[in-house]
């Protein structure tokens, strides 16, 4: 009987099996969806503000859709469309203060939108559209 010492990666199948499932329940995370009403409000706002500011949506409209939903979600929960690409200690206070309410101060002053919602034409990720339909939003976010 030979024994070899070698170092190699240990691999274990991650394919679900009946035995594995019995003890390991996957966590069901409630993914809250924003209301249709707020999505429509933020969709219209985004189109209007892109036109007004001379900016364009991302060439990947899925990004636009996700951010619009994020704004709608905050509008539902806080009454104001707080930027979904920031983390806040006190969301209610931030919404009342207004710096990060969309369109945020960096966007208004310098056309800087790190959410990639409003992109200046020179941005590598900018597409050539300033419109997005409700269907586009729904289709590109249906798996989330």
């Amino acid at each position: 009987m030979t024994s070899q010492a070698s170092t190699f990666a240990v691999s274990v199948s991650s394919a679900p099996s009946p035995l594995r499932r019995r003890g390991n329940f996957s966590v069901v995370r409630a993914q809250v969806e924003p209301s249709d009403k707020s999505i429509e409000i933020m969709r219209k706002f985004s189109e209007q503000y892109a036109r007004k500011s001379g900016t364009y949506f991302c060439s990947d409209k899925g990004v636009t859709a996700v951010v619009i939903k994020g704004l709608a979600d905050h509008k539902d929960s806080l009454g104001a469309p707080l930027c979904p690409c920031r983390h806040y200690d006190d969301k209610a206070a931030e919404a009342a203060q207004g710096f990060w309410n969309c369109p945020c101060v960096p966007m208004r002053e310098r056309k800087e939108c790190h959410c990639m919602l409003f992109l200046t034409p020179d941005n590598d990720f900018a597409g050539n559209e300033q419109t997005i339909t409700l269907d586009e939003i729904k289709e590109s976010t249906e798996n989330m």
Partner: protein
Amino acid sequence: MPTPMALNLCTSPKWIGTTVFESGSSSKLLLGSSSSSSTSSTTSFSSSILSCKSVGLKSLSSRRKNGSVRVRSSLDTTGPTVTVGQVTEVNKDTFWPIVNAAGDKTVVLDMYTQWCGPCKVIAPKYKELSEKYLDVVFLKLDCNQDNKPLAKELGIKVVPTFKILKDNKVVKEVTGAKYDDLVAAIDVVRSS
């Protein structure tokens, strides 16, 4: 009676690990292609990959004609499992135990939110990195209300933020979905 042996570290799956219990002798843990079943060689592993704790091996077994029993292992470990080769979702309760279990390995954490557009853009690239850098542990944390205490502890303003940890502490941070900056930061930490 075979001594139970635990795998506390597992890599992204490509093939099945099997244990072979040969009648009348102590068990040998063979890991490799399941086709190499009839060899009687044993293989030892580098200690950086395996550490022994308790384990229960739940498996289906079939009795082979030569008297040995081949079992298909569905490893059921106690304690945190550190996985490489993929991105592991963590929460406020599982994060630090996994970082502790990673030992001296570099750990990268993607702090994201549900409706952040750039987070969705970088997610597939982050996953590719996890498949490429097998000496680094890649984690992700949804910075929602539940995980707020941990997000606050680690500190985050811009989403996404990537924290790079080594030896149980944050050593580097990348704010924003900046892929090149992230790769550079990981390279610096893992070679330090």
